[in-house]
């Protein structure tokens, strides 16, 4: 297992660098210029000198190397400094947002809790719904319940988050007036009342995102459970006289979860992409909202950092999927 883990980690590093390079190159073509806001009275030769001193005219590999060093070494090190009180990065420049002139990582850190709460809760709810739904759909294949599960998954596919969110707002905020249509980030949970308010404002964003998750994962769970249900060990368990509950929970569910666990790990980045849309609808000022406003303002350092962070996250999710699968199923490790 340790050898397998090391091999996977070694493979992940070049992938990470390649993805970072793709994002870097795409943004390198951008028309935005960090010198654009300087006064026009500065003579061109002084401007050229400033560009040289800032390293803006350096060749591409040098700029990418410096950026990668800053992103993967300096910025994480500032967090270690802050947590442990060390001075690894004293006086080192940080990546600065063009829009707010604050370090990009600090901006993201301010926005991350909202996103994590909404996305995390939606994912947990989605999985808790999807696994029993898929299992029972497979157990009672072609029943009314299975048809209903199929309908839910096709709705999750055909009704994208920006429309399901609008439908929920129309029903629960406009007509019924039960839930607020926008998310109040200044709310602090201090007692039962504020906890209730927090739950009410999270209900719709979580519902929108978990519909997508449920739709996807319940189909995988159903297909996996159908495969397992047809296998000999299930027939053998029934022949031994195990009751159906035990067959379903111990023999079918546990084996069917194997491929589903890696689908769950792989699907997490996709939920973050869905969160970009959901945050826009419900006015949650999370990371996705920061990305959209930064794109509109042409704030390239922030856009670049968020995009690469998402890429890092995808690579880590891939890695986690591989490792979890190998830990659960020894056949993978030795194959």
């Amino acid at each position: 297992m340790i050898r397998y883990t090391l091999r996977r980690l070694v493979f992940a590093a070049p992938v990470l660098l390649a993805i970072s390079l793709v994002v870097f190159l795409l943004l390198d073509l951008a028309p935005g210029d960090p010198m654009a806001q300087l006064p026009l009275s500065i003579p061109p030769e002084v401007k050229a000198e400033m560009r040289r001193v800032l390293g803006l005219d350096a060749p591409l590999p040098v700029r990418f190397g410096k950026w990668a060093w800053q992103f993967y070494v300096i910025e994480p090190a500032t967090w270690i400094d802050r947590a442990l009180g060390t001075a690894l990065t004293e006086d080192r420049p940080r990546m600065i947002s063009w829009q707010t002139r604050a370090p990009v990582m600090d901006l993201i850190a301010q926005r991350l809790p909202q996103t994590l709460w909404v996305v995390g809760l939606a994912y947990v709810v989605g999985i808790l719904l999807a696994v029993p739904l898929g299992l029972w759909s497979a157990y009672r294949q072609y029943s009314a319940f299975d048809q209903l599960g199929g309908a839910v998954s096709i709705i999750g596919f055909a009704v994208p988050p920006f429309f399901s969110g609008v439908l929920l707002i129309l029903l629960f905020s406009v007509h019924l007036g039960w839930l607020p249509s926008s998310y109040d980030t200044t709310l602090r949970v201090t007692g039962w009342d504020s906890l209730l308010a927090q739950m009410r404002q999270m209900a719709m964003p979580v519902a929108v995102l978990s519909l997508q998750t449920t739709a996807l994962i319940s189909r995988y769970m159903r297909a996996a459970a159908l495969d397992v249900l047809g296998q000999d060990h299930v027939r053998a368990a029934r022949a031994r006289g195990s009751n159906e509950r035990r067959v379903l929970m111990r023999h079918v569910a546990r084996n069917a979860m194997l491929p589903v666990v890696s689908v769950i790990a792989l699907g997490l980045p996709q939920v973050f992409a869905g969160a970009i849309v959901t945050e826009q609808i419900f006015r949650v000022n999370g990371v996705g909202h920061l990305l959209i406003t930064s794109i509109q303002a042409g704030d390239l350092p922030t856009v670049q950092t968020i995009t690469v962070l998402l890429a890092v996250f995808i690579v880590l999710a891939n890695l986690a999927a591989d490792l979890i699968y190998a830990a659960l199923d020894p056949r993978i490790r030795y194959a």
Partner: protein
Amino acid sequence: MRRPFALCAGVALLTLIVLAVLAGPLLWSVPPERMDLAARNAGASLAHPLGTDQLGRDLLARLMAGGRISLAVGGAAMLAAVALGTVIGVVAGMVRWLDGPLMRLTDLFLSLPLLPLALIAVTLFRAPLAAALGPEAGLFALIVGVIAATSWMQTARVLRGEVLALMARSFIAAARSAGTPPLALATRHILPNVASAIAVSATLAVAGAIITESTLSFLGVGFPPDFPSWGRLLADGTAYLGDRPGRALWPGALISLTVLAVAYIGDALRDRSDPRGPR
């Protein structure tokens, strides 16, 4: 469970939507950009069956115009993505030394944060392409290109698997020993045998392209309000959800129905082509 009606229902629904969008203006000839300032934010009436927007533009006419854009983007992006995916998948399956590099490229694209990159690409290249091709054609080409560049990977993977399986069959060996050049082998023997896989990928690609375009437009980086797609109409309508819910519901329902119809067609095609029976 075979669903013989799924293909018919999907085709019928899609035909209905395409007909309404293409032939609709013959029956309802109000130009989508004409402003009726006396009837701003109007409800349903004989003059405007679905009401008007905040500038008095007729919603029915704008839905037809928007549908033409959304469906055109869906179709064009599907053609580009499937063509790219087919070439990469078939080459990876046929040429052994290119298989590794091409599949690593596919994996790399699958690991990219696609929605943020699509947002960035559309924002960055909007102005240069608009200058080169004109504002509308430039934006159309850009959005189609961005969607195609971010959605060819599934087609490539599926086709590589199918082609690898075909290459081991004896009729391919026979064709090769008869001296068939690789290009003829691909067009004469490989492509006809993977046609059903391509068709299933194509339906998935159409549905995905329509959703991606709507997402871009909803987030404000797609088509502008004077050249609106369904996604843009939906985004504009959400501001008036309280008193004119129809402005958001109609375009949203049309997006969902189109995706649903295409998904049903894809499902039915897969059921037909999969000898193991429907899943």
